[in-house]
């Protein structure tokens, strides 16, 4: 797959950060701030991740689902597309697109089990209706590339396979940001390798030079990732799965509440 990224729809759809950091006019009208918008996306990414662990799908499927989720909200409002329904539907659609179908009824079942908040619950027919709307919102582009495979190949090439674990975790965390919509996946992989190598005091200058990639871009992505960890006051690199306890449920609920149509 890596061989044809440059001719893919994914490549053609890459956008600039400032196109993503825009609160949809409808959401803005309801008082949603950019920070809240970002918080909701992080929260919902975690929601997808948790749900996926229940239904047991490959990480690739989760990554695709999150990419769909983030792409949808570069075009649609949170008000019209309730993220609490969009998240399971993204996972449902991604599982089909990645050839490892998860039945909608399983998702419905596990959401009920997982979430005490009734607003997260949905029925099969809701997911199926949303599936059609999502396809349209995504303009039917379903093939997504991820940093995982280039990561493994690059680590192999660099002879640094001992960094696999930590850099893989870093890649997983990048899905809490919008990097996958902005940069080619192998650049994200390189940034994660760069961070991991600095952290573990590995000398990589010569190897990076040989690659002939724009090191400024790699470093900028790396800084963005570090800023992100910093911003949410997370103890980076220690227990990454637990990283996002920092966002309180109240904060998320308050943000989501703004979007609920007033009676």
């Amino acid at each position, binding site marked *: *797959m*890596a*061989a*044809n990224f440059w*001719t*893919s*729809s994914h490549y053609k759809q890459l956008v600039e950060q400032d196109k993503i950091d825009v609160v949809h006019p409808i959401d803005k009208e309801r008082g949603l701030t950019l920070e809240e918008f970002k918080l909701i996306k992080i929260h919902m990414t975690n929601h997808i991740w948790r749900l996926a662990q229940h239904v047991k799908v490959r990480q690739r499927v989760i990554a695709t689902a999150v990419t769909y989720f983030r792409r949808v909200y570069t075009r649609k409002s949170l008000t019209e597309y309730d993220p609490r329904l969009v998240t399971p539907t993204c996972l*449902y659609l991604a599982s*089909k*697109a990645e*050839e490892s*179908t998860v*039945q*909608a*009824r399983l998702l419905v079942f596990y959401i009920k089990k997982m979430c005490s908040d009734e607003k997260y619950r949905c029925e*099969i*027919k809701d*997911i*199926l209706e949303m*599936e*059609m*709307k999502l*396809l*349209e919102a995504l303009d*039917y*582009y*379903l*093939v997504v590339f991820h940093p995982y*495979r280039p990561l493994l190949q690059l680590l192999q090439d660099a002879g640094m396979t001992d960094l696999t674990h930590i850099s893989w975790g870093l890649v997983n965390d990048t899905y809490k940001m919008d990097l996958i919509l902005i940069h080619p996946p192998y650049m994200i992989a390189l940034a994660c390798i760069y961070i991991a190598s600095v952290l573990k005091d590995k000398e990589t200058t010569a190897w990076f030079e040989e690659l002939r990639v724009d090191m400024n871009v790699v470093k900028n992505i790396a800084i963005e990732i570090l800023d992100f960890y910093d911003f949410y006051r997370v103890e980076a690199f220690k227990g990454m799965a637990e990283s996002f306890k920092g966002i309180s449920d109240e904060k998320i609920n308050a943000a989501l509440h703004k979007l609920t149509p007033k009676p």
Partner: protein
Amino acid sequence: MTGSFSAVEEDPSQSKLVADRYLKRELLGEGTYGVVFKAIDTKSGKTVAIKRIRLGKHKEGVNFTALREIKLLKELKDPNIIELIDAFPYKGNLHLVFEFMESDLEAVIRDRNIVLSPGDIKSYLQMTLKGLAYCHKKWVLHRDMKPNNLLIAADGQLKLADFGLARIFGSPDRRFTHQVFARWYRAPELLFGTKQYGPGVDVWAAGCIFAELLLRRPFLQGSSDIDQLGKIFAAFGTPKPFQWPEMVYLPDYVEYQYVSPPSLRSLFPMASDDALDLISKMFTYDPKARISTQQALEHRYFSSIPAPTKPALLPRPPPKGESLNEKPLDLNLECGPVVLSPPRKLRRVTVNHVGFEGDTHNNTVRGDVNDKAPRGVAESGLSGLMPMSIDLEAVFGYTAAPRPKLNSVDRSHLKRKLDLEPEFK
């Protein structure tokens, strides 16, 4: 069908726009996963084919096969691959809009009124391989190559269609189902049950299509998987381990009695040496040694004479449901200056051609086409008009066995393997 609205029921004169854009016309048929109807795209003025996708049974949303086709066709844009123009939901069903295709290669091969010159065959094969090479470059396996999935556009271009079984073969260790392709087009490694395979399976099927163009009948018509292998071995000899070392380790490997291959020449008496050489390379047993689509396109068969006939000049059956008079009159304008020999000679060729056919019903059709655009005649000279092989059906009253599609066992197996749709409760 339980759908509340159906293309047949609707009066075309109502001319209601579907999705504010498409003017619905007659029903064309039942596709793999729903009905197909003809329509006019008011945005472009072009004729299109719209597939209405049945919603999956058992509440499983958009049909999995359809979704796979959408996913891949959105990435594949090539002159030799069917174009997915648009997709939209309408009345709760997903609709896919494709460019309208007049005919398919199976109709060409079956039409006894059509003579395929060596240049014509070369052209059809070249377009098939070009489409495939593009897929393979994009890491997509078609997995259902057969003449009736090769559609022919109004301008003569052949296009790969039906990507419902296709998939991306990016991950090196991914295991796939071997229950793909209609049996007659299945490569030996699939028949031996391999789960790890590559673009070679499409090349084998393309080889079968090449042979079918030459013979004008399906080449290896096995009645079961075991029989299919028997037919393959009868044609090319039972493979020996040195030819294909991995064979004996394949899951469903069974030993066949050794038969030595007849000469290729005896199978394809009218084919050129270059054609035979390419055939032998496309039918190489060891998938790793089999020629790739790109190498096949660079084979000297395609650079030696006769040149491949230009698509617009290829013979093809009259479009379905249309009278011949409606054929565009500016055919010769589109085709450009192809006459390279004096008109006198051309006329003689035309007469000969009709005489050879010995079928007066045809004269209007052929004459018509020949007058306006002498298809490849001038390019390849007289020899271009000779058929590659005898039409068995016409000469011996031979009738081909019905073309097998995926049978019901295959289908349910496939459903389970690919769709994971709970077909049986």
